[in-house]
Structures are given as C-alpha cells and as structure tokens.
C-alpha cells in the first residue's frame, strides 16, 4: 500500500494573487482538488498526507469536506524549503511506499497514477525528453554542451521507498545539501536505481499566470475533452 504525499506548501508569490496557486481554480475547481479527487479512485492509496502552509490548512479542510473526500487525510505544516516540506510529509506518512506529487500539477491523470503504482520497480519517476538544446555557461560565455539524448525533464508524480527516502533526507540534512526534487536526492545518496516512465507534456507545473491560462486550455482539451 501507498501513502500519497502531496506538496502544497507554497504561498504562490509568483502568481501575485490573494491565494496560493494550489487554491486558485482551474476548470472551475481549486487546483489541488484535481489531484485529490483522482487519488480517491486509487485503491492502492491508503492515506493522503498534504503538506500545507499553516495559514491555509483550514481552507484545505473545508475543501476536503465540500468535495466529500473519503481517504484518511493528514494535513501538516510545510517547512522552509521544498525539500524540508517533502521530508516532513514523508515522515508523517505511515506506509512503506510513498506516492509523491505536487498540487501545482493538476493535470496528472488517474491512469498515470495507476501506471506508476503498478510499475515493477521501487523508485520511479515520470520524465520527458528535452526538446531543446542545453549548454553550460561560465558567466556570459558558453563553456560546455550537454548531450541532449541523455537528459530528462523530471515530472511528478513519483514513487519511492519511504525508508530509503528518509535515509537520503537525513544525509542531505547532515551535509546541508539542497535538491530541487526527490529523485535527484534519492539517487545522489543511495545510488538506488530510479526508473523513468514516459511523461506527458500536458502534465505541466503551474508556476505563473501564463501557466494558468495554458492550464485552462489543457484541462478543456485533454482532461475533459470539450472544445
């Protein structure tokens, strides 16, 4: 069985809205609810841990009640960084396996969750090929070329062994090292294989106001299919 850990601790500073982005509506529904409603359909998920800014916990509980979500929920305070928030979420989870997702990616489908959970490996992430060239720089001068065919654009959701992820967090804390997502952290400290499932370009992370407009189009075309 899996504990779903949902990262929703941001305050949405880049959106310049009154509410954090995970509570803004997409397709007429608060962004985080897209994910939470789909989790309801997964029998393999026995609990949901949401990492949330303390100021918005009451609002989240209101949404959980209004949408009649039935899984056991735990809502905990986030940390200072994304890594700390994820660490706290995984610590609060009870199952040996973690399904990790972020509320700002509302267009993950139930089928993608299912494919991830069913994939025969312990640590798995979604990822996309990089459709553009990435060079390295030294100041204002190019100093290297990355081989595009070996690069992957990491997408959530992901699944991990809780025990291994916790040990990686502990070592990162000891060393004061910060990672932008958890497949990198797990790989760096454990060298455990992290398998890659092919993601979809529509599973975008909503970061700014333009993403929100793009997201409405994705929702209509690819989630609901009404255009």
């Amino acid at each position, binding site marked *: 069985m899996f504990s779903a850990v949902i990262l929703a601790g941001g305050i949405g500073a880049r959106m310049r809205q009154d509410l954090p982005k995970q509570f803004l509506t997409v*397709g007429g529904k608060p962004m985080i609810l897209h994910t939470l409603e789909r989790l309801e359909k997964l029998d393999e998920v026995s609990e949901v841990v949401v990492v949330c800014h303390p100021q918005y916990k009451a609002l989240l509980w209101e949404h959980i009640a209004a949408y009649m979500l039935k899984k056991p929920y735990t809502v905990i305070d986030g940390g200072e960084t994304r890594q700390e928030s994820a660490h706290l979420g995984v610590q609060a989870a009870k199952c040996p396996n973690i399904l990790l997702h972020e509320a700002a990616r509302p267009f993950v489908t139930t089928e993608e969750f299912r494919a991830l959970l069913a994939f025969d490996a312990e640590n798995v992430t979604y990822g996309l090929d990089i459709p553009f060239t990435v060079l390295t720089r030294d100041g204002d001068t190019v100093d290297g070329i990355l081989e595009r065919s070996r690069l992957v654009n990491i997408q959530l959701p992901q699944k991990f062994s809780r025990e291994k992820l916790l040990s990686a967090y502990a070592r990162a804390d000891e060393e004061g090292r910060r990672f932008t997502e958890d497949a990198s952290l797990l790989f760096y400290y454990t060298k455990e294989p992290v398998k890659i499932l092919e993601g979809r370009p529509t599973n975008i992370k909503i970061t700014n106001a333009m993403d929100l407009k793009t997201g409405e189009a994705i929702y209509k075309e690819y989630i609901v299919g*009404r255009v």
Partner: protein
Amino acid sequence: MGTCIITGAGSGIGRAAAVEIGKAGLFSHLVLIGRSAEKLAETRAQMETSSEVELCTYDLSDLSGIPELVKGIRERTGEIACLLNIAGYTDPQPLFTTSVENMEQTYRVNVFAPFLLIRECAKYMRTNADGAKILNVASTAGITPRPGWLSYASSKAAVISMSQTLTEELAEYGIRVYCISPGRCATALRRKLAPNEDQTKIMQPEEVGHIICELVSDSEKCLDGQNIIIRKKNL
C-alpha cells in the same frame, strides 16, 4: 440503469416526461416529485412502465429540505443516473408591481431548487461508473425580452446560464448537462402567462416529453451544453 428524479411530475411537461421515460424503460427507478399527491397519483395512473415508481410529495420552495430529500432517494433507490428539473413557477407582473417576494419565490422554485438538486445529486453522480445526465427546463422567455414577465423570464435566463456553466464544471465526472427551452407549450404555467391563448393550437407537453426522453437516453451524447430551443409552428 439507475434512478431518474423528475420534478414537476404532477402536470404538464413533467408528467409527459414521466410517461414517456416510463414507457421507454430507461431507468430501474423513477422518483416523481410534485406538490400534490393527487396529481402525482394521476401521473402514475397514466404510466405504463416496468420501472419502480416512487411518488414523492414535496414543495421545492422549501429549499432547506432538499439535501435530505436527495439523500433519502439515494438510500432508497441506489445510483442516481438522471435528474430532470422541470418544476416551474410564475406570477407574471410588470416592473412596477413586481415585488421582492414575487422575485424571491420565482427564483426559489426556478433557480435555487434546481441548483440545490443538482449540487446534491452531483455529489453522488460523480462516482457513477457510467456517468449521469441532468436536464434543466428553461424557456424561450429566457433568451428574448418578455415585458410583463420580469421574474419568470430572468429566472429562465439564469437556468440557461447555470446549465452551460455546469456542463463544463461537471464534464470531468462524466455528468452531461442538458438545457431545453420550450416555446409556447400547453401547460398550466403557460395559462398564467398567456390566459387568452387557445392551447389546442400550440405545442403539447407530450411533444416536449418525447424530446426529453430522447435526450436522456443512452444513445444521445452530442447535445449537452447547448440551449436547445423547442418550438412548434402554431396549428
């Protein structure tokens, strides 16, 4: 097959829809809602159906009881597959004699009650394996100016808008929302709006009931989200 809830089933278009849908055998249960037990019994007497039929006497202007009403139907009959919001109210008045009470009562029955029925039914419908359908009866009065019918016409405009919004909002759950706007139709409500009209020369409730039955059948998958205008040339 599930349950179909039909409001306004004691007369007019609601009764005609109940008779047609019953005959077609589209649902395992039909719940007929109306204010008058006597009129609901008359509707039941006209139905030839293999579906289980429950008669439910309820005044939809009592909004507070609607969540319990829907919950009870769900518990008694199982999966709610269809909701038909057909009940309507009118007390046509020109602007200067339209009271707040008139507006409130018209909106209570024509807008607020359908809204609450939809909200409560959708809570259950969204987990149906085969989705669900909701059909709201608006009116051509909701799309063209109707001097003297302020409360009724504006309430029907609200029904059209509500239907279109909810078509988008509920699509992800597999819930299709339909909206029909009948023109002149020989009902008791129409008699209040046009007292001197010869109702034998205009569209009959059975004709609208037939179209409703077609729309809520499994084979119809293309007409949701539109305001479907139903008009007939006068005889």
